[in-house]
């Protein structure tokens, strides 16, 4: 959050101008304008069908078959992390990490990336032998080893249990602070968006309905109050009404 906000260089990593995408004459993205700066962590919220996955797939160049127009500038080095870990079951963990990797010493770099996601020693395991959280960490290592300038994440923690998700948040935050790629995280978890991102976008009917900077003051008591405000605002934008004062704080903000 605030820690890597200081690292921003100001030059854009992603530029989207009047992006339109439609499937079968149904408009999914309706003239989207968006800039993501280098190292900026942007979370994308939206109800199902709001177009958030379509936007991510447009950036990842995976939206063949869609009609559309607009300008799109994305960095050359781009990695995608999907909701499922998407490891090739017939390749051992390390071979999955370095699959398609070019450059010197791919295996060494792969081992380093695995160590960074705390999976040193599991290089020779088959993906089927790992838990869901471990598989997703391998997928994260596969992204990191490519030193992406832009990391696109499509609900990467959606299939994980709550405890594993908290640990993955920690890990992702640490890795982003170290490598500072620009990140676009698609999620429908409001708390996750506020905790991880510098900026939260809300997409509605193919338009950017809100663009909020996450400005937590940085000390626990005030953070809690601001967190609750942001969350209520975002939930309101997503069409979920929360009666004031009834929503408990997330655990990590309770008790300082």
């Amino acid at each position, binding site marked *: 959050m605030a820690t890597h906000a200081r690292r921003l260089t100001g030059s854009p990593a992603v530029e989207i101008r009047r992006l339109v995408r439609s499937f079968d004459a149904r408009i999914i993205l309706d003239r989207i304008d968006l800039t993501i700066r280098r190292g900026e962590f942007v979370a994308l919220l939206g109800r199902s069908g709001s177009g958030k996955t379509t936007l991510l797939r447009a950036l990842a160049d995976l939206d063949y078959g869609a009609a559309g127009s607009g300008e799109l500038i994305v960095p050359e080095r781009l990695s995608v992390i999907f909701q499922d870990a998407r490891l090739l079951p017939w390749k051992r963990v390390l071979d999955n990490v370095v699959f398609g990797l070019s450059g010197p010493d791919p295996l060494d770099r792969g081992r380093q990336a695995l160590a960074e996601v705390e999976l040193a020693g599991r290089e020779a395991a088959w993906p*089927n*032998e790992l838990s869901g959280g471990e598989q997703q960490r391998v997928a994260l290592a596969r992204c990191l080893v490519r030193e992406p300038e832009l990391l696109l994440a499509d609900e990467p923690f959606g299939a994980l249990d709550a405890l594993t998700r908290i640990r993955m948040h920690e890990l992702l935050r640490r890795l982003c602070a170290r490598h500072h790629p620009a990140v676009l995280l698609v999620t429908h978890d409001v708390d996750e968006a506020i905790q991880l991102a510098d900026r939260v976008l809300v997409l509605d009917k193919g338009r950017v309905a809100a663009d909020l900077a996450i400005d937590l003051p940085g000390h626990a008591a005030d953070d809690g109050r601001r967190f609750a405000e942001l969350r209520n605002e975002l939930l309101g934008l997503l069409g979920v009404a929360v009666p004031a004062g009834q929503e408990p704080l997330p655990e990590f903000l309770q008790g300082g």
Partner: protein
Amino acid sequence: MTPHSFSALAGEARLDARTATPIHPSPARRAGRRLGLGAPIAYGWALGPVLLLAFWALGSALGWIDARILPAPWVVAMTAADLVAQGRLQHNVATSGLRALEGLAFGIPAGIAVALVSGLTRLGEYLFDGVVQIKKSIPVLALIPLLMLWFGIGEGMKITVIALSVFIPIYIQFHDALRGIDSRYVELAETLRVSRIDFVRHVILPGALPGLLLGLRYAMTTALLALVVVEEINATSGIGYMIDLARSYGQTNIVLVGLVVYAILGFSADAAVRLLQRLALPWQRTLAG
């Protein structure tokens, strides 16, 4: 379970008895799934065959079974020993085995090659897939008269029939597997900017290997079927010839020896493919535990 934890549980049960909801102490290990079939027993699968053999032996010994219809198991065993002593059995087994192997040696590579061309390229699909699908709907055994007119009744015809019968299951299973690669992996390879060659080598081929091996298992069955049929048409050697000759002399015991040999051939072929599956797909073994 330790005595200590057991007494603790028993204590709990007593405690709860006062509140009228007794808790059953949990057994140290659950016997199995409540709605399952119960725990498997080692070599349990052998029960049926052993009982059948016992019934056969008992029936023969007590004279319930006419020896002209079904000779006793020991008569069959002795016949086999005689045939080995005369050298006939091993000669015929070698001939049949060689025939099957020659058919497999043509049919498997051909099935793999055509499936690759048709599975990996559009043009290949348009050229070959329709032809193979038409060919598939004609049973191979129905082609025998035509093949006899073309190749005569010699080894060429026999090997062609076996090769054709092997080609179909290999082609069908491998082609399906090549085309059935999960689109999520295609997407992944695209985001990793993998070249087409690497994509085929690291994603499509290893992903389709289980399908190829399944085709190979089917091919073993169809090869044996084709072998049996072609050996009873004007052959002068082989297990089928031995059986057919014995039939015309009413030697039921030799017919039975031939059938046992076919059973052993079929079982060994299947076991060989299963071994190959275990060796070639180590990543699948982890699922079975």
